[in-house]
């Protein structure tokens, strides 16, 4: 099915199942610990051996020699694979560094060997006996000192590095009120609960990987490419994923080394990345240095917006696209953005929840707060005044839906913003300095083509198969809701099977495109199935309605199951997209409000209230969507207050590479959270009229926190995370 004109009324609009707050259909499996995650597929194949990965001890250089004798002789060891014994390996399209390093080392903890043994303990002990001599090369590990050498990168996933409109330089120079500041965001780790894990099993030249992966089709391709085998010989199975946030968009060392280990040992092999390896072995969100320049008239109209961002990556990598939202968020006749990329020898950077917008808004939304203050304006009013309903760089393009102002107004009202003292540093509650902050949320909408197969069986049950993944987001449930709505059956009559490369190729989970795209694919397959069913029952497909387990047309009403009386009815289809996303700018919007308290003595920061108001198309499952947003707000609080991979600029690695050192919020950090979704349907996105919320939820949160800390203390921190050591010298004197 091709989606190339805005959706009109369709069966989804009945909203009997879609749009209802619905508990996850796979929830009981997860809460009872019986959902089989990759590493726990003990049942999948017999005789599994255990692999343990050895990571490089240096960041850059070469392996001078490797002595495996002791490790090979250790109890239980079945095989050891290194680059020297692995044979020719390719590199996946989505990987920057090779997944098995050696002799050249490209980054710290790059995998250099897998040790396979009878037990996990034996594999781990033997891995400790692999003796490696390295020759270190000098590396470049410091973004701040690499700005001069940074280059203009090629377009990255369709995003051009530079944009300009009007005459920024002249407009900024002559602006009556100006802001010109630098902001920094650190490297972030995804820190999902489930580590990367895979079980690999060969049957002749055919490989099956039970793994934890967000993008099945991409990853089948990259496994095949890396191992140099045909893609048809690779099967990936990934029905349950314990969080990914982008870390599992790609094939990582667990999958490739499990496959190599299994080949060498002649047995299935299971591998999980140990937590201390993950930060440096896998991808991370790259640090940024950002410069923002804003010019405005004295009555608060922005005349010029400039946003530049520098980030680093290994050679061949890409930039963190931190300026993307600035091209679209506020009106101003003169604008420029630019991204520059430095070559760093740190582990490879890549997507993490709302890549681009998350760090970009961390900077931009502080700058907007600062500018409002310079203008003596309320920051909510300032944002509303500078709203735009068209793409500011292409004014002929309208936003398909844009309710940013409504989000801000409703949020301000609900949060009690009017009672705020505009002057910072004046509100006290005992030992606490109290402040409130606001930020806009923005995340682009993406639609990706997505296919599904739907079966109606003799019992009248509907079975959906697609390689879509559920990374904890609720894909199972919204897909079941979609099929139930389309075919007029209750939710418990639908079975959803996900995450298997044997199923039709879906959009996968990334870029918050999953919900709308994958359900649109299921919609397409269900529409086809409806036609097949109606025909089978001798009803006019154009007139047939599906409700209460019956198909009705022309005064006749027949039980759905009858269509499958002599065998399953099966339909498969894919939703593809025309150019509506070019005609309209499709984006999701929100506003975050935060109240923070700062201990006047110690500078400790504790949040008191958080509110998000989101406008993101039709909300398919308000319960799951709310979970997504409160989880994202939590992650945003982490980015604001504690998350930072500490770079050792001498040795070139992230030092705090475990969950004791890399702090993410715990329950005690997170106060009462509220989420409001505005009523919205966006007919330009798909027949589902939906968009995504999973990434929107994090966008802007950290800036709202930083702005609240400023309002509490009068201290502006432009370098994340906002920690007490950055406040301590400027807090009010103590008695």
């Amino acid at each position: 099915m091709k989606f190339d004109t805005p959706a009109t009324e369709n069966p989804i609009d009945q909203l009997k199942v879609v749009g209802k707050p619905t508990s996850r259909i796979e929830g009981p499996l997860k809460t009872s610990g019986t959902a089989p995650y990759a590493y726990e597929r003990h049942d999948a194949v017999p005789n599994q051996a255990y692999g343990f990965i050895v990571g490089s001890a240096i960041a850059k250089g070469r392996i001078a020699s490797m002595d495996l004798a002791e490790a090979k002789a250790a109890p239980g060891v079945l095989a050891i694979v290194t680059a020297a014994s692995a044979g020719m390996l390719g590199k996946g399209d989505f990987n920057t560094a090779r997944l098995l390093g050696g002799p050249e080392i490209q980054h710290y903890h790059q995998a250099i060997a897998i040790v396979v043994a009878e037990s996990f303990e034996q594999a781990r002990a033997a891995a400790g006996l692999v003796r490696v001599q390295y020759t270190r090369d000098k590396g470049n590990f410091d973004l701040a000192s690499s700005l001069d050498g940074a280059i203009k990168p090629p377009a990255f996933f369709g995003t051009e590095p530079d944009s300009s409109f009007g005459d920024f330089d002249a407009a900024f120079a002559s602006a009556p009120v100006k802001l010109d500041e630098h902001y920094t965001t650190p490297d972030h780790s995804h820190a999902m609960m489930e580590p990367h894990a895979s079980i690999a099993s060969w049957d002749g030249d055919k490989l099956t990987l039970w793994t934890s992966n967000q993008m099945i089709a991409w990853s089948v391709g990259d496994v095949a490419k890396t191992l140099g085998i045909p893609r048809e010989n690779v099967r990936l199975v990934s029905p349950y994923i314990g969080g990914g946030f982008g870390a599992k968009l790609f094939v990582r060392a667990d999958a490739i080394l499990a496959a190599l280990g299994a080949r060498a040992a002649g047995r299935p092999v299971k591998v999980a990345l140990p937590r201390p390896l993950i930060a440096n072995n896998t991808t991370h969100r790259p640090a940024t240095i950002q410069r923002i320049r804003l010019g405005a008239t004295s009555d608060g109209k922005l005349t010029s917006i400039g946003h530049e961002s520098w980030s680093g990556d290994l050679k061949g990598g890409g930039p963190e696209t931190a300026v993307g939202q600035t091209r679209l968020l506020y009106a101003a006749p003169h604008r420029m953005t630019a991204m520059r990329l430095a070559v760093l020898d740190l582990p490879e950077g890549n997507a993490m929840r709302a890549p681009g917008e998350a760090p970009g808004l961390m900077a931009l939304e502080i700058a907007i707060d600062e500018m409002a203050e310079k203008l003596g304006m309320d920051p909510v009013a300032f944002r509303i005044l500078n709203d735009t309903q068209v793409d500011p760089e292409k004014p002929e393009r309208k936003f398909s839906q844009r309710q940013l102002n409504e989000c801000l107004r409703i949020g301000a009202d609900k949060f009690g913003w009017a009672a705020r003292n505009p002057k910072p540093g004046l509100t006290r509650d005992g030992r606490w300095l109290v402040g409130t902050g606001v930020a806009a949320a923005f995340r682009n909408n993406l639609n990706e083509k997505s296919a599904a197969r739907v079966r109606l069986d003799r019992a009248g049950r509907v079975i959906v198969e697609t390689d879509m993944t559920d990374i904890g987001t609720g894909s199972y449930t919204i897909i079941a809701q979609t099929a139930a709505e389309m075919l007029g059956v209750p939710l418990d009559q639908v079975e959803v099977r996900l995450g298997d490369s044997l199923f039709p190729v879906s959009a996968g989970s990334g870029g918050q495109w999953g919900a709308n795209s994958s359900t649109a694919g299921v919609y397409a397959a269900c529409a086809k199935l409806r036609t097949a069913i109606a025909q089978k029952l001798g009803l006019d497909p154009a007139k047939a309605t599906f409700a209460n387990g019956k198909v009705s047309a022309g005064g006749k009403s027949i039980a759905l199951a009858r269509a499958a009386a002599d065998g399953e009815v099966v339909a498969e289809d894919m939703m593809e997209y025309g150019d509506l996303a070019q005609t309209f700018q499709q984006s999701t919007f929100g506003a975050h409000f935060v109240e923070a308290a700062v201990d006047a003595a110690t500078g400790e920061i504790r949040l008191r209230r958080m509110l998000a108001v989101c406008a993101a198309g039709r909300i398919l499952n308000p319960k799951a969507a709310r979970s997504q947003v409160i989880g994202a707000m939590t992650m945003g609080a982490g980015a604001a207050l504690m998350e930072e991979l500490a770079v050792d600029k001498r040795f070139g690695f992230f030092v705090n590479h475990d969950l004791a050192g890399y702090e993410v919020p715990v329950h005690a950090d997170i106060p009462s959270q509220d989420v409001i979704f505005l009523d919205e349907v966006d007919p330009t996105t798909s027949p589902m009229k939906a968009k995504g919320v999973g990434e929107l939820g994090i966008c802007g949160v950290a800036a709202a926190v930083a702005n609240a800390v400023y309002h509490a203390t009068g201290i502006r921190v432009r370098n994340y995370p906002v920690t007490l050591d950055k406040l301590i010298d400027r807090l009010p004197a103590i008695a």
Partner: protein
Amino acid sequence: MKSFTYERVDTPAAATAGFARTPGARFIAGGTNLLDLMKLEIETPAHLIDVSRLKLDTIEPTSDGGLRIGAMVRNTDLAADARIRRDYGLVSRALVAGASGQLRNKATTAGNLLQRTRCPYFYDTNQPCNKRRPGSGCAAIGGFSRLHAVVGASEACIATHPSDMAVAMQALDAMVETVDKAGKTRRIALADLYRAPGSTPHLETALAPGELITAVTLPKPVGGTHIYHKVRDRASYAFALISVGVVVQPDGSGRVALGGVGYKPWRVKAADAELPRGAKAATSALLAGAKTSHENAYKLPLVERTLAGVLAQAKG
């Protein structure tokens, strides 16, 4: 993790005898620190002597009006004990500020005192670390040192001791009771249990190999207001950036100990004397001769400000 042998013992004598039999052995109590270190091969004992079932799990009054806390009393039980809560509130407050409920259920009094540093370079066996591999250097000096010591450190090591409980016990003049391989018992002031790093940061305590901690004693209650303020970025489940434990009497006199600033809970008698004059004076005494890096210099004003806040709180 290296393979090891294991025995479980019922009496302190059996524990120390086991040690005498198998050099390179380690006592294991709750295992919440030792096992993590073994998995990373930071500790590689050939033999484990499980002391967790020793009958050293009671809290008894001493003849001088204090309490004797058995070495195997769990952190949870110690924090919840009515006498501790009434008379030694600092200990209870410090304990519940540490780790998590699950960990405190396992962690023991002796194990808590002997937990090792959380220096991230100590935890990465690829990195130079004099404490882990004597003579290899100290990666934290000149590296990521935001969490590290500002007093008592050396050119060889700037690690801090991470225990919260020990800070409270230090403020209360706790004594550690031990028995050695020969069956000889002794009492060591907690203040003397930890060794300054000097040029041998791998030697951390005054205990002889195989010397078993059997109890910690607290002298008779000192009264006053007990406050433990642990400062951290994350509201819970994080080690202290710094911590301040005070006991303040109605006349303003009292005592103060710090966590997160040195290789041991930091107490300076002269600082106690300065307390009535306020946080600035007491901090000058506590942190005299402090040496900081660019990354941990914030600890100096932070100690003073935290102490000021705590003293204000004590006044009510």
